């Protein structure tokens, strides 16, 4: 059985090919102007890595913000469902999954079969999404990837008052003007987004193990900020950005 899963996100499109329950290839391309084209590119790149052609795949499904824009997928599944299935494949002991994508953040509680027990999602406000961190990194004149390093060098805890990403940007600029150390600001930014995610986790109930997926999971500073706030360990699976796409491919194989 060969199946494929596409996760068409706001920023990147991920594709995964699975054969008999194992991931055999994956690919990620930036989401371009046309989600349809980007989905095709990611899919074909993953197929190329696997040494397969589209006709070899028995079932391909899609999820993500751009899931309606695809001309080859045979169906779609929800983002939350994809996360639940994907995380149980990667980490069978995970029961709570947090994800911070470019334009949404979520907390999902799952059972051992990869079914969704409960979830909370924020897709209305950038304050709980990856774009918050990006906007702040831009205002700090650094890159998102360097935020962890800055976080680690912070010596003083400061709190950002603004929740809104737009207001936080002005607040950040005044912090910079008042000579606040960059590492302390970076830490305040990551703590702020961690706060948003933790409040969603509390809403669904926190059950161990807790896993983080999506691009922001690679941001060690963010993970540390969540760990510090909850005083528990957060596990990050290998290739956290692909977990949803894997979940989609699993769903495709099951159909």
């Amino acid at each position, binding site marked *: 059985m060969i199946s494929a899963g596409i996760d068409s996100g*706001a920023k990147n499109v991920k594709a995964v090919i699975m054969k008999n329950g194992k991931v055999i290839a994956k690919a990620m391309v930036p989401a371009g102007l046309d989600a349809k084209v980007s989905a095709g590119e990611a899919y074909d790149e993953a197929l190329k890595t696997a040494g397969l052609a589209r006709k070899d795949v028995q079932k391909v499904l899609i999820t993500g913000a751009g899931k309606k824009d695809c001309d080859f997928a045979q169906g779609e599944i929800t983002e939350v469902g994809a996360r639940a299935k994907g995380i149980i494949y990667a980490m069978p002991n995970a029961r709570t999954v947090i994800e911070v994508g470019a*334009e949404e953040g979520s907390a999902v509680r799952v059972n051992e079969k990869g079914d969704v027990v409960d979830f909370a999602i924020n897709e209305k406000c950038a304050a709980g999404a990856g774009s918050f961190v990006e906007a702040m990194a831009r205002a700090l004149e650094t890159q998102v990837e360097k935020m962890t390093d800055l976080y680690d060098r912070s010596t003083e805890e400061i709190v950002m008052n603004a*929740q809104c*990403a*737009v*207001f936080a940007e*002005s607040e950040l600029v*005044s912090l910079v003007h008042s000579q606040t150390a960059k590492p302390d600001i970076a830490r305040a930014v990551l703590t702020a987004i961690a706060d948003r995610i933790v409040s969603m986790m509390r809403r669904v109930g926190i059950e161990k193990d807790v896993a983080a997926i999506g691009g922001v999971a690679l941001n060690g500073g963010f993970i540390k900020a969540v760990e510090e706030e909850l005083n528990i360990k957060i596990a990050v699976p290998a290739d956290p950005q692909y977990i949803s796409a894997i979940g989609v491919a699993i769903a495709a194989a099951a159909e």
Partner: protein
Amino acid sequence: MAEERKEFWRWPESRWTNPEIDWKKGKYITCGIDVGSVSTQGVVMVDGGLCCYGNIRTGSNSPDSAINVFNKAAEGTGLALEDIQYTVGTGYGRVNVPFGNRAITEIACHARGANWMYGPSIRTVLDMGGQDCKVIKIDEKGKVTTFFMNDKCAAGTGRGMEVFADLLGIPVQDVGDMSFVVEQEPPPVSSTCVVFAKSEAASLLRAGWPKEKVLAAYCSAMAHRVFLLLEKVNVEKDFAITGGIAKNQGVVKRITKELGIEACETRWYNKAYADKNVPFDTQIAGAIGAALFGKALSEKLGN
């Protein structure tokens, strides 16, 4: 740090001196300073009449902004700080007015100021500020009876509009008029969050929408957002809009259309003033209210 490009969000500062008032003949000379998050206004009132005002962008330092706006307002009038009997500070930087005698909340000041600017028949004031938006119900004396406020989210605030003006490269003061240059009213931008609305607007532009149409979609989204706040109170007539966005007809007309209630013209800025090219600034309501409180407090002190 500053990029080499035009800053479209920079709205024009303003000032005005009332030629009909000679402050030297006044009994009560009071000053109101409204240090907001985005803009700062200062007015001097002589026996409850508007003598002069200034409206500037808030700098990184509130005390400096307070002094700068006083100097802007007093420009050419010969007024100095020593001539002022009582100064009331308001707005988020109200405690940072170095020459302030007292600080009063912006809700109370806006209510009082709107009562002066629009008349005692005003019952509902919508103040659309730089980083907040508030609906205030007032009585015939300009006293606050109830209010609702959004200061958590940039949607529906002046800052949100500035961000959009910058994105589209349209001077912020032209946004309102341009938003009416559409054949048909487009559906509002669907994202509430300004950050998401920006990416939505970018994709609308890529899809070939003219800038005017995108602005129309954003103005109506902002109007709807504010309408939801207005719905929390029973909006009674007369209704007035103050703050920077009150100058943006693209938002104002869409709010009043959705609400089904017209917004009042100010009593202060009438045709006689218009004929004399008096600049009308909806942003000074808070500072006017502060100066009027200053007069009341000054009278109490008996000086």
